[in-house]
């Protein structure tokens, strides 16, 4: 039976969640369930990061070495980590279904989701599990497509899109599983006494950034950002926009949309610093992935005398791309901090204005810095012959503002809507 109680304080972030009713029961059995879910969540996250390395390595392997069969080293890495993560999801659902029907006290309708009419499990694991299934199902279909059309397929083929959708599902599942555990643990936390000074509150907020559930959630957001930039990277996204004599790659607009993740991150956790942390960890993960790819290709291809199709791809000039995500994260955090009292009144208008404003600021910064950053590897000039200006602010950027401004505001609002859904997640 569904318990009725007040919901998390989405519209009043200063309200302590522990006071918000009986939705989150703090029993020993529930804590045990939460602990094991979080432990497996971290294990899945580790496997997921491994699969991110494998996927990026595979993309680079295609360009540099080619594809002389399905079981290339990057494919082994990618599909084995995905399979292991999928098995964890399956195991969690089966075990929780069994325990639920045996009336284990820590599992009930309030913290499990019904799936396929009979099974019971945490929403995040269920969604992630379906994501892994989609990814694994796309593998033979993608291989079939390669058999017909060759190895040099664009990203936007039917079964690459299927894989991408599976990755998005898997990643969303991980975001939801950590959000659920974070909400539950926050509700169990003893709230700070009202007389606590502002300084201590800030310190407590910073400490929260590194609590296992919240750090896991931040990393799941980082991973999703990697997917976003991986799917819409300049090499995969064709097309350009013309503004008079200026040509702008459509990719510049895509970058603006990344503001949604930053807004969602800070609005979900309610902790200042999360968006900046997403930007920072993204930069570090991107650096690690590129370093690993370089090592992987050097060790497993060059050193073993495999014929390379192109060597230039081994040079990485976009190691930290886009580092501007840190700056955008800072802006989002700042706006969240400055509008805290304003939003605390709980009215919808100020909430929408703050999130839209944060999206606008972050989106504009990302858009503004994207082209100068791209100039570092003069990719556009080489590949498409697009003339890149050396100026920071150029006529095509000004001309694109009527598109960029609503897009950035929309990104902020999408981030807010997503955060609302995440803050209500408790099962």
């Amino acid at each position, binding site marked *: 039976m569904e318990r009725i109680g*007040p919901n998390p304080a989405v519209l009043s972030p200063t309200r302590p969640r522990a006071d918000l009713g009986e939705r989150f029961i703090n029993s020993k059995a529930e804590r045990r369930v939460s602990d094991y879910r979080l432990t497996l969540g971290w294990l899945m996250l580790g496997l997921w990061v491994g699969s991110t390395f494998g996927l990026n390595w595979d993309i680079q392997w295609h360009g540099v070495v080619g*594809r002389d069969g399905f079981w290339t080293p990057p494919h082994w890495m990618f599909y084995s980590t995905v399979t292991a993560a999928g098995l964890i999801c399956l195991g969690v659902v089966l075990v929780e279904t069994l325990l639920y029907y045996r009336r284990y006290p820590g599992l009930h309708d309030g913290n499990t989701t019904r799936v396929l009419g009979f099974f019971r499990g945490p929403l995040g694991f269920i969604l992630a599990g379906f994501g892994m299934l989609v990814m694994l199902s796309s593998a033979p279909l993608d291989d079939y497509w390669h*058999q*017909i059309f060759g*190895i040099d397929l664009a990203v936007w083929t*039917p079964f*690459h*899109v*299927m894989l991408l959708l599976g990755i998005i599902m898997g990643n969303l599942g991980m975001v939801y599983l950590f959000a659920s555990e974070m909400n539950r643990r926050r509700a169990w936390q003893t709230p700070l006494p009202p007389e606590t000074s502002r300084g201590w509150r800030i310190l407590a907020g910073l400490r929260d950034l590194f609590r296992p559930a919240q750090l896991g959630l931040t990393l799941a957001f980082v991973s999703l950002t990697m997917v976003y930039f991986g799917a819409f990277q300049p090499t995969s996204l064709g097309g350009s926009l013309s503004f008079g004599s200026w040509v702008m790659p459509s990719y510049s607009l895509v970058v603006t949309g990344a503001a949604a993740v930053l807004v969602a991150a800070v609005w979900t956790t309610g902790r200042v610093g999360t968006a900046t942390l997403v930007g920072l960890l993204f930069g570090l993960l991107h650096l690690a992935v590129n370093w690993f790819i370089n090592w992987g290709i050097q060790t497993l291809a060059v050193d073993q005398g495999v014929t390379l199709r192109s060597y230039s791809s081994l040079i990485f000039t976009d190691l930290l791309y886009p580092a501007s995500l840190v700056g955008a994260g800072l802006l989002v955090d700042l706006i969240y901090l400055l509008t805290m009292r304003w939003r605390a009144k709980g009215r919808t208008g100020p909430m929408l204005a703050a999130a839209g404003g944060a999206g606008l600021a972050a989106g504009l910064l990302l858009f503004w810095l994207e082209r100068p950053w791209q100039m570092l590897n003069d990719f556009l000039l080489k590949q498409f012959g697009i003339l890149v200006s050396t100026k920071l602010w150029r006529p095509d950027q000004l001309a694109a503002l009527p598109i960029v401004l609503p897009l950035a505001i929309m990104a902020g609002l999408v981030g807010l809507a997503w955060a609302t859904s995440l803050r209500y997640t408790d099962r």
Partner: protein
Amino acid sequence: MASATKATGWKWATLALLILGLALTAGAGRASAQNAPSGDYTAGPFKLRVTFDRDTFKSAQEFYLTVERLDGPAGDWNLDVTSEPSRSTSATPVKYSGDFHTSEPDKRLVKLQIPISGNWSVRLSLQSGTSTGQVSLPVMRVEPPPIIANWLAWLIGLTPVLGLLGFAFGQWRQVINRRREKQLSEDIHT
């Protein structure tokens, strides 16, 4: 009467599926010409007889190649095999490694698998003592698997979108419900 109608329905459904299947795989079932480059070749100082175990090839399908030394080998000899795509084929060369020895010292048996359809040639490199020789067998056609229609591929590829939309809808309903609960709770307290 009802069971007769049901049986007719099944027949029509089967026929429709058959027609659909034929339409989707149209063109894929064309008979391929016999193109296995079996025959006698010379690779440097070596005389060889090359025999494939079939005449037509399909991508990702395993097949066997036998290489027989006709010049009577004196001592052990090594064989390296690489399949190489033609310029028109979007693929990379595939090297085959392993012990190709058979019970007969003048024969080697190689298992090949060509991953991509298109035109390919097989290059044989032999080494015996200080002598080496190479030969590229004529281009052979590797057929693709039955090709499904593009729209069907996209339909399959985009199926997970339904799941994502369902999830988004479920989340939206949950937020609405929770807001109602909150409202109800506030009403009770006031």
